[in-house]
């Protein structure tokens, strides 16, 4: 019999993740070897016992996910890293560039997760399209969310305009509309408000 695929899970939502572990334990092709929600602990545990695939939450506490992927790939080149529930185009691109093997979208039911793990273990990549945004996110247009993401990175209107290929004035007009829709004054309050509403991810 083939040796089972060793899976490590880094995720803070311990209740559903217990369900994932239960599913893996019930399948002889897989062997869950650990769960953690602390970057340091994950690293220590991976050094002590190597894994084939790491499933990792979209925003691990205290670290920048693409950076963490890059570091892990340097240390464990053989390790396949699969972020779960990515929800932004930029985040997805950054994770891909950092060496992730794919991702598990949030609209993936449990029955589809094991086949994805098998494919990735065989060397395939898995990059489906991002699922549709939630109802609250649709308060703003995708372009407005994109602009707000740049504002959250502390870029000026001019910088944002240059990056998106639109004029500074357009950015300014859009910012006005964003503030009107969110009923706040000031770009930083708009970002804070968007974070509270879940339009932008929490810090």
């Amino acid at each position, binding site marked *: 019999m083939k040796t089972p695929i060793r899976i490590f899970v880094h995720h803070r939502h311990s209740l559903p993740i217990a*369900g994932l572990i239960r599913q893996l334990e019930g399948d002889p092709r897989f062997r869950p070897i650990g769960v953690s929600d602390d970057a340091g602990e994950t690293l220590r545990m991976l050094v002590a016992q190597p894994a084939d695939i790491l499933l990792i939450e979209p925003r691990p506490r205290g670290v920048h996910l693409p950076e963490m992927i890059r570091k892990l790939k340097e240390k464990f080149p053989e390790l396949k890293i699969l972020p779960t529930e990515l929800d932004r185009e930029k985040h997805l691109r950054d994770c891909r560039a950092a060496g992730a093997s794919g991702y598990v979208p949030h609209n993936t039911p449990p029955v589809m997760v094991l086949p994805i793990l098998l494919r990735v273990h065989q060397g395939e990549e898995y990059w489906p399209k991002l699922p549709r945004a*939630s*109802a609250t996110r649709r308060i703003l247009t995708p372009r407005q969310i994109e602009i707000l993401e740049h504002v959250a990175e502390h870029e000026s209107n001019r910088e944002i305009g240059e990056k998106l290929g639109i004029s500074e004035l357009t950015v300014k007009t859009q910012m006005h509309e964003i503030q009107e829709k969110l009923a706040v004054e000031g770009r930083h309050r708009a970002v804070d408000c968007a974070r509270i509403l879940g339009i932008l991810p929490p810090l």
Partner: protein
Amino acid sequence: MSIHVKIVGTSEFISGYLAVELRRFKDLSVSTYCKNLTEPVEQIIEGSPDVLILDMYQDGPAALALADRVVEQVPEAKILILGIDDYHHGPSAVDAGARGHVWIKKSATELRSIIENIRQGQIVCPNEEEIREMSKQVLEGRRPPSPLSKRHLRCLTLIAKGYTNKEIVRELKCRPFTVKEHIRTILKVLKVGSRYEAADLARKHRWIKAG
């Protein structure tokens, strides 16, 4: 007799695995419904579940609004809100008409007994002490060391809340010059260009509380 639990949420990954975890209790019959939280109430309560679990994944406000809509139409509906990232939403969940709020860090056994209590008509909401304990677990217990002093962090906490210099002066009971000096030092130590960047950086590293 088994308890019919229906999990409603936007993430099939999270709701799906929550169902997997709950199905190990033989007396629960668990179904999931993952769509937009703006679906008509008839769809949500279809199959007349004994307890409806709404998960706040990705869209907390929509989950609360949905609880409100369901209770308006079906006052006897028993809704349990599952807090994902926010462990302090208990009171607003009950305000919206839910019978309770449970945090995703609870064990399946605890969730199982909360479901039973809610089915019997109780209201289950974490009290203040429990909320404090949870926030401590999430934030305080693991707050990493920062290069800033306590006073600077206090100042930065206020900046993160959107306070102006004048308001900070009032809060910290110091001179306007001192606040300016504090901010200058903070920017220098963190090597950033603006007070908002400093606040974001501090929140990212969890030197100060988020939100």
